[in-house]
């Protein structure tokens, strides 16, 4: 199974066009692209549990790159097997990202839109569960590892 053909960890800016080109073909009538980018705020459990927003300055993305490509590649294969006719490709960024920078681009093509949407959504949800990738958030409340909680 060639993960490398389906998932790439990059230390350089991502390319939406490259991801589309990787999956587009004459039999595909639909391509769904998901782009995750660095937002300027995040929700934080404030003191006393009241949800507040925290301004984000930048994010450092770290990855266990080889495993991440394997895991994400396998997730794309999962989607291709579950929705026949789908082709998927993912780029994920590592390093320090500013607000607005692209952290992940997922492109899924299919003959019809239903499968393209479903596969694309599947990949981002599963990626967030299993891809060995972490982000350190530099917010105005200090620096924290996302997902580690208080």
């Amino acid at each position, binding site marked *: 199974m060639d993960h490398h053909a389906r998932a790439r960890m990059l230390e350089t800016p991502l390319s939406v066009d490259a991801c589309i080109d990787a999956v587009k073909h004459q039999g595909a009538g639909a391509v769904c692209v998901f782009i995750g980018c660095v937002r300027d705020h995040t929700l934080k459990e404030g003191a006393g549990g009241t949800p507040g927003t925290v301004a984000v300055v930048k994010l450092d993305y770290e990855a266990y790159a080889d*495993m991440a490509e394997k895991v994400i590649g396998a997730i794309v294969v999962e989607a291709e097997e579950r929705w026949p006719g789908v082709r998927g490709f993912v780029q994920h960024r590592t390093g320090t990202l500013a607000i607005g920078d692209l952290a992940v681009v997922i492109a899924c093509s299919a003959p019809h839109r239903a499968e393209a949407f479903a596969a694309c959504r599947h990949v981002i949800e599963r990626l*967030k569960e299993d891809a060995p*990738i972490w982000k350190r958030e530099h917010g105005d409340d200090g620096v924290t590892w996302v997902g580690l909680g208080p």
Partner: protein
Amino acid sequence: RRCYADDVVTVLYFAAAREKAGLSSERLALPPDASVAELLAAVQARHPALTEVLPRCRVAIDQSFAAADARVPEGAEVALIPPVAGG
């Protein structure tokens, strides 16, 4: 397999685990046929600062997630995977 000699594995520390352990990787000698649980205990002993994050880590052996009862083969690359946050 060598008899009675320890298995030597490489342990990789990522994100919060690296930060708490103060290093990104190290070689660790384990009794032969050690389980993931035994490896974690050894890591805990070496790096008390990991006490908080260790229970929240998953473990990968040679880049595949492994259960607590999995065996750690000689020369394996074992990674501590704190809660992930990709995308």
